[in-house]
């Protein structure tokens, strides 16, 4: 089981779907951010799994994973800063209350 690429890819797919659900369902901006982190982790798991089973990709996977982690960190920085900024204006982190521009 742990010896097949399929099981890891399915695992990462499930993680991605859980992240998607969180992103679509949660009202809190920070919860949505956490969901995005889950999705990015799913991507990383995919990458590392490919690296672990496909000889040509062996070392590359680690590098790509590292770069993705760094990008995720940058995204989190900007995202949390934006949450801070809008919290100061609106006094709520609930995203669906940010609808002053509907239609």
């Amino acid at each position, binding site marked *: 089981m742990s010896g097949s690429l399929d099981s890891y890819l399915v695992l990462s797919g499930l993680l991605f779907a859980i992240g998607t659900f969180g992103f679509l369902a949660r009202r809190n901006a920070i919860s949505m951010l956490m969901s995005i982190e889950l999705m990015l982790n799913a*991507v990383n798991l995919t990458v590392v799994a490919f690296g672990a089973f496909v000889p*040509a*990709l062996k070392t590359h996977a680690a*590098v790509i994973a590292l770069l993705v982690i760094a990008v995720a960190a940058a995204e989190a920085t900007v*995202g949390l800063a934006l949450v801070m*900024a*809008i919290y100061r204006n609106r006094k709520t982190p609930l*995203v669906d209350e940010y609808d002053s521009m509907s239609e």
Partner: protein
Amino acid sequence: MNWSDIGTIAPVVASVLVAAAILIVDLALPNRRQAVIATALGGLGVVAAVILLQAGHAGSAFGGAYSLDNLTVFLDAIFVAIAVLTILFGVDYIEPRGLPIAEFAAILVFAVTGAMLIAGSTDLVLLFVALELMVLPGYVLAGFARRDPYSTEGAIKYFLLGSFSSAILLFGLAYVWGITGTTRVDGVAAALAKVAAGGSIQPGLAMGLAFMSAGVAFKMAAVPFHYWTPDAYQGSPTPITAYLSVGPKVGAFAIALRLFVGALGPLRADWLPVVIVLAAVTMTLGNLVAISQDNVKRMLAYSSIAHTGYILVGLAAYAGGQHSGLSAILFYGAAYTFMNMGAFAVVAALQRQPGVSSQIATFAGLGRRDPWLGALMAVFLLSLTGIPPLAGFWAKAYVILAAVQAGGWLTALAVLAMVNAAAAAFYYLRVVVYMYMREPAEELRPSSPGLLFRVGLGVTCVLTVVFGLFPAIATAATNAAGVFGG
């Protein structure tokens, strides 16, 4: 890494240095905004010079991760022009609102650096990282007026959806990488050529394509991945909206060129139907919704969605076997950049005084209140409509002609594009009507923008007209840039 590698990516290095220089000047000389602006504009001038020096040269650096070719030079030039124009338009707007120029300029230059990297990247990982470098500063810029609820609201929506789509794009990239076994564009293309020769594609690859297409479609604001556009555009400070409407969009099409044309070119028969549907839905929906907008910024946002659709027609024409579709995309990108930035700049000029809204009523009587501004807006809007002999006409003509040449379903797409172009006249000219055929509701002072702003407006207007009268000037470059990769 060696010196020749650095030489190849010189424009990117230069623009990172410009961003650093802006911040250093701001630290060294606080409250000297002229120094900051001079540094930014001068630095970007140097970047432009470096790009021009590279024109005609070709090469690759970092083991094939980055390629210098005519496409890179052409796109780099557009991106630098976008940066310069954004700064020219931004100063007049940022200043009265007490926002810092240095941060604005530095973040903008970072974003443009990312865009320039996209233009030259021939490696999937570099492509993704460069994309993030382009969009992350974009989120910050969208929320740049951080005390303004609209600005931060637009920014957080842009950020959340943008990150969501980045994750989707990345997921797709991971699968394509896993199947082809390489991140280099030419390697991917070679692997996929084998796949394409073998007949049908594997489900895993199809899913990777789907996720990537969705991610890229989001970045270029194609329907149904466009939802972020109206809110982000309306909320952002207007000169930044001008930037967002062209910078990330041309950047997204640069990705499309490098990724779909360069790497996924062998599979173009597979993604052609998707692009056709996307193009058709995008331009139709963008136009339909634009018709019912009363806020000019929002109207221009929807119109920019429609323009995405027209540009996608060029991409579809390429996939349909018509190589001229690529130069058509590039011409469209250049023409769209100048006319759309110009249109947003006029909105920004009106909003120079804080508190002026971008509702269409603001434009009532502009033709008499401010004949120059009105005339410029009219030129930009007519060009966006596609009325000859302005740049927008040729832009549309080229993509549609390429589609017609490709034949088949693309002929139907071309006809649909023409129907859409005809319908679009309705809402663009509505603004013209307001400018020339309505009495202003309240008497607004004529806005007298600063010198820099006027220079920017002049440049966009002249280019819009010149590209219309002498499209040959641009087509020489687009034709050269349209033959890249394979």
